[in-house]
């Protein structure tokens, strides 16, 4: 019953003409961003945050706009994956495995329609899951003290560094770099500057938006300069779009199974959408009989599985982000940055203090799903046209938008230079196969993580065993250790499929 009143409140916010307009505009913009080769949800949302902020919208409106962009980009990402074999971000990689072979075999339209429905199913499933699970989790979250929060942050970093990465040392290093950057600036407890090197610009710390735009958007520009935009303009033609009813019906089971897997992966803090789409693909392949299933050769179910998993994980990742303030993926980390910019503190109190924000968001997501289904199945041909934008126009554009966004936010040269430095770091780390998402997460959560540790120690008067004093924290520590070391044992059992080349 409470759920219905909450939903009614949400819809009363979401159905106002202006919010509705923002949701539709966000979906449209998001689908375009997702479809643009080389732009995915994380960098798309990242370059838009400073601009959305400068629009002067209130918290609910900006949140609705940006999450609509986020969902839209998740949908749109499959268009460039399928037609160009270019995933917009890591989770979309699994869609290329069967989507691109299908497109080459002349079934691009079928692949797009099927994946559109799979995205819809996954996202709807996850939104309903979010609706049911988030209030429960927010109630549990009230029992979290500083010791539990410290363990929870640790869990997020260790799952991100463990099951979601290729090399634990590199992922852990990236987390340390992010956390280390977060330490720069004034110390919350003593008010003394730390690690600023006497530079006045660093007294306030490093703005996470500068780091996000640098690592995601500017680094992408360098990647394209390095490759000279090669391999991005060749693509497959899309002829006519029909509804492959039989395969859609056959895929309902797949969608259901993969949505569940994706949602669970999304809810795990730190694991996120890459793990969701990967697990969904691999388990569906096993379910359909391993190598005999034809997965990897253009099997329609192989397009449905990762898309349902991916979009479901995207919604699932919102659960820990909203209830605990711990994002489950790169893009939700970017959304957390948005919340922090808007001065909304995620956590259990968000559900009681600002119910109109949470439920307005959930209602908007439900609406956005239907809008996106309409945009991505009957109207998909419009978005396919966007793929023809050549990289030598697109990437300079991305660069200029990033500069203006950061400049309008802070108005300082120093931040622009810092953004370029982060761009170079992002490029270098991409070459060395060091993940950059943990850096973002570290910068976002560093201060909170340290505060949790210090507050726990104040409570216990310096007794370190306090960190393991409750059932919840012991459980979180156990999962953190397990999540970090598990890959040593399962890596040879589950191999990540590699991207296909022509």
């Amino acid at each position, binding site marked *: 019953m409470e759920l219905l009143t909450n939903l009614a409140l949400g819809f009363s916010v979401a159905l106002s003409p202006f919010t509705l307009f923002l949701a539709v505009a966000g979906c449209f913009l998001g689908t375009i961003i997702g479809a643009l080769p080389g732009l995915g949800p994380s960098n798309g949302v990242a370059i838009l945050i400073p601009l959305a902020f400068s629009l002067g919208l209130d918290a609910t409106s900006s949140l609705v706009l940006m999450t609509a962009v986020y969902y839209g980009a998740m949908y749109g990402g499959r268009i460039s994956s399928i037609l160009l074999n270019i995933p917009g971000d890591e989770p979309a990689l699994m869609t290329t495995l069967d989507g691109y072979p299908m497109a080459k075999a002349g079934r691009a339209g079928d692949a797009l329609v099927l994946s559109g429905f799979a995205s819809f199913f996954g996202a709807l499933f996850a939104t309903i899951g979010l609706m049911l699970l988030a209030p429960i989790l927010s109630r549990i979250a009230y029992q979290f003290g500083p010791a539990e929060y410290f363990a929870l942050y640790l869990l997020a970093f260790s799952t991100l560094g463990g099951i979601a990465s290729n090399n634990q040392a590199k992922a852990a290093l990236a987390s340390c770099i992010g956390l280390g950057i977060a330490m720069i600036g004034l110390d919350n407890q003593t008010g003394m500057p730390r*690690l600023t090197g006497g530079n006045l610009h660093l007294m306030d710390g490093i703005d996470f938006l500068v780091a996000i735009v640098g690592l995601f958007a500017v680094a992408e520009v360098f990647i394209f300069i390095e490759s000279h935009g090669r391999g991005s303009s060749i693509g497959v033609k899309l002829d006519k779009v029909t509804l492959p009813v039989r395969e859609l019906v056959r895929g309902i089971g797949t969608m259901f199974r993969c949505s569940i897997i994706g949602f669970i992966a999304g809810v795990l803090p730190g694991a996120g959408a890459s793990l969701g789409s990967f697990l969904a693909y691999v388990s569906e392949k096993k379910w359909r009989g391993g190598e005999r299933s034809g997965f990897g050769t253009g099997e329609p179910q192989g397009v449905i599985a990762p898309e349902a998993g991916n979009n479901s994980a995207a919604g699932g990742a919102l659960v820990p982000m909203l209830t605990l303030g711990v994002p489950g993926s790169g893009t939700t980390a970017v959304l957390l940055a948005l919340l922090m910019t808007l001065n909304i503190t995620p956590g259990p109190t968000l559900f009681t203090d600002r119910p109109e924000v949470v439920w307005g968001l959930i209602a908007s997501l439900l609406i956005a799903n239907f809008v996106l289904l309409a945009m991505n199945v009957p109207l998909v041909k419009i978005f396919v046209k966007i793929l023809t934008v050549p990289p030598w126009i697109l990437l300079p554009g991305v*660069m200029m938008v990033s*500069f203006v966004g950061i400049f309008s936010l802070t108005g300082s040269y120093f931040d622009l230079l810092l953004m370029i430095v982060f761009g170079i770091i992002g490029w270098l780390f991409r070459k*060395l196969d060091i993940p950059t998402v943990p850096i973002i997460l570290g910068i976002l959560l560093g201060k909170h993580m340290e505060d949790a540790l210090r507050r726990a120690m104040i409570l216990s008067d310096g007794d370190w065993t306090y960190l393991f004093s409750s059932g919840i924290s012991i459980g979180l520590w156990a999962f953190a250790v397990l999540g970090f070391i598990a890959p040593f044992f399962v890596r040879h059992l589950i191999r990540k499929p590699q991207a296909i080349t022509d």
Partner: protein
Amino acid sequence: MKSDRLFGVVVILGALAYAAGALQIQTSFMSDPVGSKTFPLILAGVAALCGLVMIVRPDAEPDWPGLATFGNLAISVAVMVAYAYTIKPLGFMIPTAICAAILSYQISPRALPATLTGVGLSIGLFLVFKYALGLGLQPFPKGWF
């Protein structure tokens, strides 16, 4: 192999420098059991350990681009830095057109499309920023018009 090892060494040196910086942090009379140095020192320790692992167990060598591409990247960085310094004194339009054109040329070296991209992006983005988003951008240096 070599890149990872080299980077591992850089990481360890960086971690040492960070730890040294953390030890210099001034503490005030108000302090808590953990203090402001402990967490940064833990981070430096973990990072150094990661650097060590990278030296001992390096991944395969990434394929680095050739010298010419490094040249392109260096030019792009230089252009971006110049852009960061000129956007305020020279207004939005001129630096944007030049910077976008040069970046476009670095991706696809054809002069005419690159120039058109620069001019087009400069005008188009200015209109979007100024009138659709309402940002207070200066189109040209002050005192021109």
